[in-house]
């Protein structure tokens, strides 16, 4: 009995799934029609759909962040700012005209994603080649990114008026689920296939557990770490495109604001160690949905957007503390003492 219990709690996806169930249960008690899904104009509406919809870009960021954490034992805190850069490039190149885009839609999106990839390359260069701690390296874009985005928009909010621009962030006509969900699912599937069918996933884990050992057995550690940062930049770019499509504009100050904490939280909640090494993409995605469920339920409790970070910060600290080896040692030493005391008493 004890063995099976230990087996269940030791399962990597145990923490994220339990957390998700807890949040959902809490919501069910608080708002009875939480699980109600209605059909309106051929599309689905409801709290659950909203959570999955909003969790899409977070899941996309979490996929990139998971790889970065796994390979380099550090986090990329520039993801929100990079999203803002991408959004600015896309909105700037597509233009505000109601009838026509300034350039083909795909070219605009690709240009934006290229911007995201370039940002990722910059981070990767600093971390992999220059061996700078990931958070300091990405701190540069964390602050400069929004500045660059402002410069592209020349300090204004650029709107994209053409109706079809909204599709990426809302619904494709006659499809019941929102578009971002498909994008996130496709990206997750492709990433998972690439990591499983090639040795890349293994390489990333090997490099993350021990960079030197990885190099000694013939893995180009630098290249692997560099690639994870580039991929994270691409993911931020895709997330940025979706975010700007939702509001059909680029607001350099607010796009992806505070989302880096959510992304890190999703990765940590997914049972991934922030110290690098083994990772689970599925865990991070469940983590992302949990975070979004938490956010939505906090909104439902009339917590404003700029107060949200408090609760998330507390959750981060709790998770990191639970993961910490010192804390576990302390707990197990407490448990270890009990039998000794019992013996002495008897």
């Amino acid at each position: 009995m004890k063995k099976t219990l230990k087996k269940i709690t030791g399962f990597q996806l145990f923490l994220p799934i339990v957390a998700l169930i807890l949040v959902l249960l809490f919501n069910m008690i608080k708002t009875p029609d939480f699980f109600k899904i209605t059909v309106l104009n051929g599309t689905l509406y409801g709290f659950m759909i909203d959570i999955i919809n909003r969790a899409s870009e977070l899941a996309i960021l979490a996929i990139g962040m998971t790889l970065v954490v796994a390979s380099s034992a550090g986090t990329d805190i520039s993801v929100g700012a990079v999203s803002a850069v991408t959004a600015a490039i896309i909105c700037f190149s597509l233009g505000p005209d109601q009838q026509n885009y300034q350039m083909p839609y795909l070219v605009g999106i690709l240009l934006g994603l290229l911007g995201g990839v370039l940002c990722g390359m910059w981070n990767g260069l600093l971390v992999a080649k220059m061996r700078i701690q990931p958070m300091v390296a990405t701190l540069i874009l964390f602050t400069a990114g929004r500045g660059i985005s402002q410069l592209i928009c020349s300090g204004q909010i650029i709107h994209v008026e053409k109706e079809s621009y909204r599709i990426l962030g809302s619904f494709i006509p006659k499809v019941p689920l929102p578009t971002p969900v498909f994008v996130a699912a496709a990206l997750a599937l492709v990433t998972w296939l690439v990591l499983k069918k090639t040795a890349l996933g293994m390489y990333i884990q090997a490099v993350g557990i021990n960079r030197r050992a990885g190099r000694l057995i013939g893995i180009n550690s630098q290249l692997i770490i560099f690639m994870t940062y580039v991929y994270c930049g691409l993911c931020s770019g895709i997330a940025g495109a979706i975010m700007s499509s939702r509001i059909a504009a680029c607001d350099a100050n607010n796009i992806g604001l505070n989302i880096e904490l959510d992304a890190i939280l999703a990765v940590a909640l997914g049972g991934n160690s922030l110290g690098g090494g083994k990772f689970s993409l599925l865990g991070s995605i469940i983590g992302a949905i949990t975070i979004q469920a938490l956010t939505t339920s906090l909104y439902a409790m009339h917590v404003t957007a700029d107060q949200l970070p408090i609760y998330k910060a507390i959750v981060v600290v709790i998770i990191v503390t639970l993961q910490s080896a010192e804390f576990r040692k302390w707990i197990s030493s407490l448990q270890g003492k009990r039998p000794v005391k019992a013996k002495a008493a008897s």
Partner: protein
Amino acid sequence: MINRIKEKIDEKTYLLIITILMFIAMYGAGMIIFADKGFAKPQMFLNLFVNNAGLIVTAVGMTMVMITGGIDISVGSVIGLTCMMLAYMMEFMNVPAFLAILIVLVFGILFGSVQGFLIAYLKEQPFIVTLAGMFFCRGLTAVISSDMINISNATFLKIAQAKIYFPFLATVNKKGKVITPFIYPSVVIALIVLVVIYLVLKYTKFGRAIYAVGGNQQSALLMGLNVRSTKMKTYVLNGFLASLGGVLFALNTCAGFVEQGRGFEMEAIASAVIGGTLLTGGVGNVIGSLFGVLIKGTIESFITTQGTLSSWWTRIVISLLLAFFIVLQSIFASIKSKNR
């Protein structure tokens, strides 16, 4: 003679010397380019200190933390929160100015101890802990109030606006009026903090322990130093300095609002790194950080004097400068490891 100088200049001081030369070159260039806009006036130079008193204190704390090999990215939010707390307490709760300042400083110490405990005793990554701290404080600021609160407390404004004149630097302007350059009390506080921390780092047991812990934690432990408590004390002191920085910041702006101090952690880290503090820990100097702050101030005055560039450029230039110095450090480190 040259040999003696060479002996003194080891790789630790290279970065500091580059920084000081860079500051002189930049300010000199500013005096030539913007000669007609008053860049050469003494007041312009003193304004570097007046505008950045809070940053000096914060950067000093950051330098200490970085010498231990850690980092604190929560300082910007702590500053925002302290400003908001001060403003809210004095405006809506009628707390006397000095009591409000005291409460805020105690809060800083408490906040620093929580972060320090998590980092030093539970061995969590400083980045993650302080990132959470950053969002926690930013959120708490919004909980207190989401509006901008102007401080109108008489005592507070008196402290904020008391001018300390430098008569010997007085100049006469075109209209024949005598202009005496001045500083505010906040600058004096900042410079006192700088000197005290400089002495602490250089001459006390605690200060040397900070360097030892950052240089090599294992050796420090084997030497019998208490690594955990040293780290803990550093983060507590840093929390105190961050909130003191917030008080000085509030003296300068006389207001509290949610967005205040956003991106400030970057400026503090950049100042420390530009001043020769190594990201890997063990090396650093608060005097260098002072010059880091002055360089940041010079860039800012360039951009405001020039007039047409948007204020976003300051952030971008500082970030680029930080990147440049980080790369420089990494090159120095690789040269050092090759020589070995």
